[in-house]
């Protein structure tokens, strides 16, 4: 019973973080058709901005939303500077991998220069600990498990029920036809990047509340998000969400039974197998398209 509870809880918790990261990555891929390799840096920057605002004396309830907005702005800016001017070039995917990596590296080192290497920590969403059956957990972790599905649900409703969401889904499918019906594709690209950055910032706030922050804290979540989207299928946002939780549970089970040391190796073995059997991901069909 203890084992099952531990795996379930660990899986839900890790899955929440992965889902939050992977959805942003998938959103950018489906709308613009590029991989944003500065997505992990958005997460880190978001956490640092939140930390700074809290350090200024703002209450987290004000500081966190401000940080999310600011990170969304940075996302939009990054899109306008290192992605949009390149749209239409040959090898767009590869070129954008390089430009976003470069921009990410600049931001990472900028953060290091401004805030220094000393570890920092954000206040948790909820302070305190509790027991679930036999395992002790922090209320912060429980908050993450509860809040994440709500945010993802809100994103889903935004994409499927609103006019702008419909426009984003349309751009994801056909750029020329989108312009022909009067959609401002450039603005929608900016919006997709801004939303993705905001989601990354939320993941950063989650992470900064239970682990020490550092300028490289986004690297591992980015890698995990990449695994999630490859595993779940990049061509939608529902695929990565399911995959994120599946991988969360897989990791939790592996670390329980085989130890943390073997978990990455087993994860990559599963990933390679997935790529061999279903290269388009396990939850989706080929081709791009949101929702």
């Amino acid at each position, binding site marked *: 019973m203890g084992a099952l509870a531990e795996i379930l809880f660990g899986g839900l918790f890790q899955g929440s973080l992965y889902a939050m990261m992977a959805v942003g990555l998938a959103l950018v891929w489906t709308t613009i058709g590029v991989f944003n390799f500065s997505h992990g840096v958005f997460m880190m920057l978001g956490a640092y901005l939140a930390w700074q605002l809290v350090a200024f004396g703002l209450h987290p309830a004000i500081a966190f939303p401000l940080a999310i907005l600011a990170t969304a702005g940075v996302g939009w800016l990054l899109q306008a500077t290192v992605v949009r001017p390149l749209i239409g070039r040959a090898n767009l995917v590869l070129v954008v991998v390089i430009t976003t990596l470069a921009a990410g590296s600049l931001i990472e080192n900028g953060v290091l220069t401004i805030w220094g290497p000393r570890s920092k920590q954000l206040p948790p969403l909820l302070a305190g600990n509790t027991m679930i059956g036999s395992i002790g957990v922090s209320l912060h972790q429980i908050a993450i498990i509860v809040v994440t599905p709500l945010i993802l649900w809100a994103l889903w409703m935004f994409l499927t029920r609103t*006019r702008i969401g*419909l*426009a984003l*889904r*349309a751009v*994801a*499918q*056909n750029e*020329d*036809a*989108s*312009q*022909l*019906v*009067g*959609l*401002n*594709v*450039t603005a929608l690209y900016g919006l997709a990047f801004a939303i993705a950055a905001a989601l990354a910032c939320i993941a950063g706030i989650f992470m900064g509340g239970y682990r020490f922050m550092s300028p490289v804290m986004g690297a591992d979540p980015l890698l995990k998000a990449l695994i999630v989207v490859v595993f779940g299928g990049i061509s939608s946002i529902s695929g990565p969400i399911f995959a994120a939780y599946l991988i969360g549970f897989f990791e939790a089970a592996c670390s329980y039974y085989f130890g943390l040391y073997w978990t990455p190796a087993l994860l990559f073995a599963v990933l390679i197998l997935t790529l061999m059997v279903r290269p388009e991901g396990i939850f989706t069909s080929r*081709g791009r*398209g*949101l*929702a």
Partner: protein
Amino acid sequence: MALLAVEGVCKAFGSLKAVDEVSFTVAPGEIFGIAGPNGSGKSTLFNLITGIPFAPDRGRIVFDGDDIQGKPGHAIARLGLARTFQRETSFDGLTMFENVLIGASYGKPDRAAAAARDAAAEALEFVGLESRSFGRLAGELSVFDRKCLMLATAIAMEPKMLLLDEPASSLTRPEIETSIGLIRRTAARGITIVLIEHVLTFLMSLSQHLLVLNQGRVLAAGEPATVIADERVIEAYLGTRRAAA
């Protein structure tokens, strides 16, 4: 006054002059046909007018009193210029209704949500798509239905002018008959139509004016009957068709 005036428009791809000094005017309310063999620059001309995916290298395009060359594609669309593609193009992962709703919402951005939904439903019914299939994904439709869907999306934008790129391609004969009727009814709504086709009979039965392109240049223009009697048209257009057959 002309609704659309194209003056000396040029577009080159490297050394190939795809569209070379093309000029013509389209009067409001008419059906204007553009003919020409494959590769004569018909679709490129539509690309230049709509600005998607590229604008002309040189020349001037005036639509409803506005200079539109060089404007972004979505801005041109919102001025009331709609287009359909030769290959049936839709948002495949969206439902039929969502496809048309995008045209209704963004082609006329000042329209309220409820009005946009009404306009979308009306446009779908106008082209003959049944309301019980509104929830089907566009990608699952037949070629003819997808062409109708493309037309409905354009009509939902309430454009002043509609550019139709080979609406009859890959359709069966009865479907072509239906299309001709549909295009006539679209024109009767007050939408000026510019029509590309290389099936001449289709063009002859619909258009009031005809323009023939060959190798990017205007070969002949005027009344359809006069144009197809032109020596150069017979040589360049029908001549090559006979040779191909």
